[in-house]
């Protein structure tokens, strides 16, 4: 196959652009690898707790992050294991304060199953899954702007329930005594940060949920609230779609839940669907809850009233629960657009190459074509033996 120089140029240019991007990407990765603390972390590969310096600020506090393993993504531990096995990992505890030293307390706690968010229990709460965690260094001294690595070991019992579990590994400054001489009540404010640890234990996975009868909790917009309880052994993230019908049974609108939360096994969460509809009347809402590949349905009757006048609107909105629509994900859109552009480019190259291939001919074919061309050409008339002389130049008029 012969390639036109223009196409070679095009492909090389594309390679150069891609290569340039990869160079920049690699430089960024290198910057991460060789940044202040991670460089020293990479050099260290012992169980000794070493202190490394980091960039701090006067208002910084204690933070923690996981040292992820190949295959992990994001900023959490996601562990898949068999009951009866042991998992070993590490976290980095960082004092971001450039002036203060901290004594950091490191411990594991269970997560509240009924919160709707991800709410770790208090350090003095009873532990179930958190008992599986061993932290050899539960207390760390951290000088200003420094970090240390802490090994974490999780032993999964033989009789652990299959499915998904959640644990939080917490880091907080050791509390100091509160001055009780003031007279008025004093609240000591503690802050702590945590690392989400999602565990999937092998075995039979049960996905099941229960949806309570929906209730109406607001007007203009109408907010339908239902409580979903996780009855299985896996974390679910249910989605609720409401379809609205008028009295004749005609479908008039649909709405989707805005607040979609993870619900842990045994826990529950309130899920809201907001519907803004102005035309007064009686309507039926059919709610479809879906999680994994399962569906459940519920119904609710809604009496839509006259919408308040403009001057009353502010008051009505202020009284309604805070429902904020979840925005579409910009990074996902960017990825889709990027993927689309790449596909178009690749398609264009393939198209051009195929087109070029069709046009390519071998030297033998060329010679044959030339012969055919020559044979098809009419014989030109013989040139005259005595060509007539050129006409005389025009005479100048006197």
């Amino acid at each position, binding site marked *: 196959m012969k390639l036109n120089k223009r196409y070679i140029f095009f492909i090389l240019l594309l390679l150069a652009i891609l290569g340039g991007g990869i160079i920049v990407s*690699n430089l960024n990765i290198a*910057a991460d690898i060789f940044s202040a603390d991670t460089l020293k972390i990479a050099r260290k590969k012992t169980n000794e707790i070493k202190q490394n310096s980091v960039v701090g600020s006067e208002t910084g506090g204690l933070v923690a992050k996981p*040292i*992820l393993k190949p295959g992990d993504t994001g900023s959490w531990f996601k562990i898949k294991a068999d009951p009866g096995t042991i998992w070993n990992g590490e976290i980095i505890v960082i004092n971001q304060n450039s002036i203060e030293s901290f004594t950091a307390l490191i411990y594991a706690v269970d997560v509240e199953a009924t919160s709707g968010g991800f709410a*770790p229990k208090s350090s003095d709460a009873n532990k179930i899954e958190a008992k599986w965690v061993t932290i050899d260094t539960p207390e760390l001294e951290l000088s200003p702007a420094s970090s240390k690595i802490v090994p974490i070991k999780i032993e999964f019992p033989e009789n652990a329930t299959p499915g998904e579990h959640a644990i939080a590994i917490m880091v907080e400054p050791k509390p100091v005594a509160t001055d009780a001489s003031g007279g008025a*009540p004093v609240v000591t*404010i*503690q802050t702590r*940060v945590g690392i989400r640890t999602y565990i999937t234990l092998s075995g039979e996975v049960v996905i099941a949920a229960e949806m309570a009868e929906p209730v109406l909790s607001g007007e203009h917009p109408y907010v339908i609230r239902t409580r979903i309880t996780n009855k299985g052994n896996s974390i679910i993230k249910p989605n609720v779609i409401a379809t609205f019908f008028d009295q004749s049974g005609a479908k008039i609108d649909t709405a989707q839940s805005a*607040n979609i939360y993870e619900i842990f096994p045994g826990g529950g969460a309130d899920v809201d669907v907001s519907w803004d509809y102005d035309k007064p009347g009686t309507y039926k809402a059919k709610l479809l809850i879906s999680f994994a590949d399962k569906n459940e349905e519920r119904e609710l009757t809604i009496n839509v009233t006259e919408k308040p006048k403009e001057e009353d609107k502010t008051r009505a909105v202020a009284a309604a629960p805070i429902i904020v629509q979840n925005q579409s994900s910009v990074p996902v859109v960017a990825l889709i657009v990027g993927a689309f552009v790449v596909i178009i480019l690749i398609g264009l190259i393939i198209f051009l190459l195929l087109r070029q291939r069709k046009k390519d001919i071998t030297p033998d074919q060329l010679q044959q074509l030339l012969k055919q061309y020559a044979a098809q050409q009419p014989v030109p008339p013989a040139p005259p033996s005595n060509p007539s002389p050129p006409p005389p130049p025009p005479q100048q008029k006197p």
Partner: protein
Amino acid sequence: MNTKKLKVLTLVAAIAVMSNIFGIQSVFAVDASQTVNTAVSAGSTLSITVPGGTLNLSGVTASATATGASTGTITPITVTNDIGTGATWTVSSTSTNLGLSGTNVIQSDTSTTGTSSLTGDYDGLNPQSGFTSTGTKIAGQFAITVNTISLGIPTQVNIAKPDPAGNLTNQSVTAGAITINGIIVTFNNLWAVGEILYINVDHFPYTAFTATPATLASTNGASIVGMNLQGAGAYSGAGVTSSSRNDLIAPTNTGMGVFTFNLGLSQVTHKFPLVGTYISTITLTLI
């Protein structure tokens, strides 16, 4: 395109390909060692800060005939998320009971020479104190009777807690000190068997302590759209520390930047409380 240009482009492409190969190799090398997180850079952290370590609530306004309130606001609570992965995060909080400080606890005893010092804070658990809903005052008093001594220092005591069941517990004293519901009692060495120490305690429970998240804002221009400030509510639970309640949730792909919000606090106080300073701990958790 002339030959010179073609050579230059070929060279650039070759460098790009080589860089790619070496770049991939370096990433594999890092992953294999399992020591460096390439997904989260050194600076990519999630942090929470609050001004100061304590908050003074307003003075208790309760009297012998009416309940009162004590209020305050933690402001601002600052969350900084520069992880950049779009991962969801939650701010939640727990609270302990507002218990009377040990240094304020009134004590009395039947001993002529024995004394004790009290530190720590009453955890608000058994027994109750103040008034019941029917208006009957419950004595928040422990009666600690010395059972055994060694060189004048109590080694074992009986503790009577005026709970509804009238339970009596027997506890050992270690190195002259014992902790009773958060209050640390330290005895001197002049006690005799049968002598009794009385300490009066009181508390305001976290089940009457309401948190109200408000005024979510961004300090660096980041969008707050999609972030869910949770509604007001009292803490719940039955332990020394309450269950967690969510205050602010940033769903996936929201909450990337620096944000502030306030947490309003309001404690209902019962009638005729014991005089003294009441202390509790609120723990704000970011995860």
